[in-house]
């Protein structure tokens, strides 16, 4: 066996070593630019009482989750039972951000619909969904046109933001929360922030 014929094999093993190590990394874990920054403030109408509003400051002093959802979102349906269970166990307060309830639903045509009519329809749909599937939220607010969603850099529903007592975003979970991600990532972070606060 001449040494030069072994070169391709050795090169390949080098590459394979890196690939193996690569499996332990997550290239998608791109740090969100908002992490550790103050959460964008908002003041939005509440679903339970559209006449009154809820502002982000009202949660100051608590460690809480902002969960972005919509009734048309299939993956939200998947994570919803877990949220309901979390609420029953009073693990951590969750505020719902109902995102583009009407205009996000491809099945509806909203072109030409007045904002008031859209808001009314959004309230009706969101309430109906919460009463069908259970309401795990401390309260939910309406982001009818998705502006707040843009401030938070939402690019898919569901997404969940962990916000600390000072109102800073500390973690962002993309996609439905799973029991694993709750126990192994989100709750430990919540505990840590509570201890720190």
């Amino acid at each position, binding site marked *: 066996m001449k040494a030069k*014929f072994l070169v391709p094999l050795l090169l390949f093993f080098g590459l*394979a070593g890196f690939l193996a190590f690569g499996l332990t990394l997550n290239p998608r874990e791109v740090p969100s630019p908002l992490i550790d920054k103050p959460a964008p403030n908002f003041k939005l109408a509440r679903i339970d009482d559209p006449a009154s509003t809820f502002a982000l400051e009202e949660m100051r002093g608590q460690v809480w989750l902002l969960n972005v959802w919509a009734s048309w979102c299939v993956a939200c349906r998947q994570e919803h039972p877990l949220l309901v269970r979390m609420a029953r166990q009073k693990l951590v307060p969750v505020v719902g951000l109902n995102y583009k309830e009407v205009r996000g639903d*491809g099945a509806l045509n909203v072109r030409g619909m007045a904002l008031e009519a859209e808001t009314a329809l959004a309230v009706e749909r969101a309430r109906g969904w919460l009463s069908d599937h259970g309401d795990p939220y401390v309260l939910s607010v309406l982001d009818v046109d998705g502006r707040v969603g843009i401030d938070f850099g939402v690019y898919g529903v569901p997404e969940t933001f962990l916000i600390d007592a000072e109102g800073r975003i500390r973690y962002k979970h993309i996609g439905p929360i799973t029991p694993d991600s709750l126990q192994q990532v989100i709750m430990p972070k919540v505990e840590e922030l509570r201890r720190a606060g």
Partner: protein
Amino acid sequence: MIPELGHFSLVLALVLALVQAVVPMVGASRNRFALMAVGRPAAQGQFFFILVSYVCLTWAFIQSDFSVQLAASNSHSATPLMYKITGVWGNHEGSLLLWAMSLSLWTVAVTVFSSHLPEAFVARVLGVLGWVSVGFLSFLLVTSNPFDRILPGAGEGRDLNPLLQDPGMIIHPPLLYMGYVGFSVAFAFAIAALLSGRMDAAWARWSRPWTTVAWVFLTAGIAVGSGWAYYELGWGGWWFWDPVENASFMPWLLGTALMHSLAVTEKRGAFRSWTVLLAISAFSLSLLGTFIVRSGVITSVHAFATDPKRGLFILALLVIVIGVSLLLYAWRAPRLGGGGSFSFVSRETALLGNNVLLSVASASVLLGTTYPLFLDALGMGKISVGPPYFEAVFIPLMTPVVVLMMFGPFLRWKDDDLVAAVRKVAPTFIASAVIGLGTAYAVDHVTWRTVLGLALAAWVVLASVQLLAVRITDRAGAGLGARLRSITASWWGMWLAHLGVGVFIIGVTLVGSLNTNLDVKMRDGQRAELAGYSFTFRGVQDADGPNYDAARATIDVRRGELAIATLTPEKRLYRAQGMPMTEASIDIGPFRDVYVSLGEEIEDGTWIVSIYYKPFISWIWLGCTLMALGGVFAVADRRYRRLAVRETTLSTQQRTA
């Protein structure tokens, strides 16, 4: 019931793949014909069961059986039938099944077209293909079962990713997979040659058509993919150096090198170990591409849902297949021996030079693609490698390739006279340089890239003409028709494919330097001007499809007084995923494309419209078509059929004698 049938068929296919992997190999090593003969029926049976399995999966999609997890995640009851069918390969599991099916189809092709090959050799080839198939079928069954059920079934599916709901989806993946997987045959031939120690001109002649056909598929697949990206992604680019594009481009570069290396091995017996290494590497890079796409190690727009277990499995598969092959290579290749000697000035040298350059190009793409991973693994931060790197590396590597590519065919095999050869092509070379400089002078934005590109393109085209002229005048005597007819199909193939490279360079260069675009706000009746064309916005109508809502703009394109086209770009919102998509509208012409895509509506009735003027862009795909056509010509050469017939009769005579 039907999904279970599909699952069961897949298990049966795995069993047959194991039989195909073991029995003929044993037969070949013990010289037992009865055992070797098992290979063909096992391979054909395996194909049958994979096909049944594939049909069952497709059935679940067509029937909208959303108790099958895969259908629930990738289909919807309102999806058009065509995209229900193609949705089967629009995800990890289904596309892997398509991968396995192409492998099995190639294997069946080997069983059918191998009657003129020695039995023991065919047995080894089928054995190697069987092992690859065992690997992929178990990968499917263990980590990625496409027939997994969810109980109770979903009421409605989540629909196929809207990006994939496009005619490109119908042909791009099958072509690409046939290309990728097709290199498995050349790979199996190489491994069989290493195992048997027999590696001669006959071996190269058998491998050549297989490699060429795979290369044709891959060329066509990549070209279709790039055309699809061009009109579907809505911003007029045609190549993005995305990791997954690179994953198909690396085997293409090495496949190109392999085709040429095989030519030398066949004609002159030289480059044997180099050819074997290329055959192994081309297929290895196909496998590596599969790993990159499916493991989640490198981010890409194409990536499938990833899962570390899958990544680990396929990495293990990679290490076994490639590791064992390269080990075998290190052990056996030194004994293959050199071929005929050749002097420094010869066609062999030109081909070797290009092979080395193509391999280096392939390696540099690999480096660029995996570099973010290296840095991340070494804790040096997250980066992404973009087009500037690839362009900086590619231009200096490909320039000598193109020059040599046209010079090589003027050289004789074994030994030639450098001065005479240079004298022959010098006028063409100088003319090309003049044309390059001249044309670049005539158009605006002269950059050195434009000059270089045009000079290279002129060199390819002029040298092609000269080559044809030389070829015809060489056969003096007979009439022109007879002289043309005497040229073999494989020569025409070479000529066309090389000319295709020239056409491709023209497209790339001109679209790169003359491309202009404009983003404008438009409302009903407004006009915009670009590159001598005027665009009048005629408002937006609803144009809803079966599973999406759409706004369709109507834009009249005129050039002076002449109405050129009415373009209708769309903005679609796919209902099931709430995902917006742009559908560009393009007026395709031989010398330019006018490309319009619709952006956001910013206020009532006012839209952002992106207009692109892309000169010569269709030449990119025309060039690819010529290359692929060249491959088809090369394979259609009469000598393959003639030799096949002769060898069959020979072996029949031997058997009867």
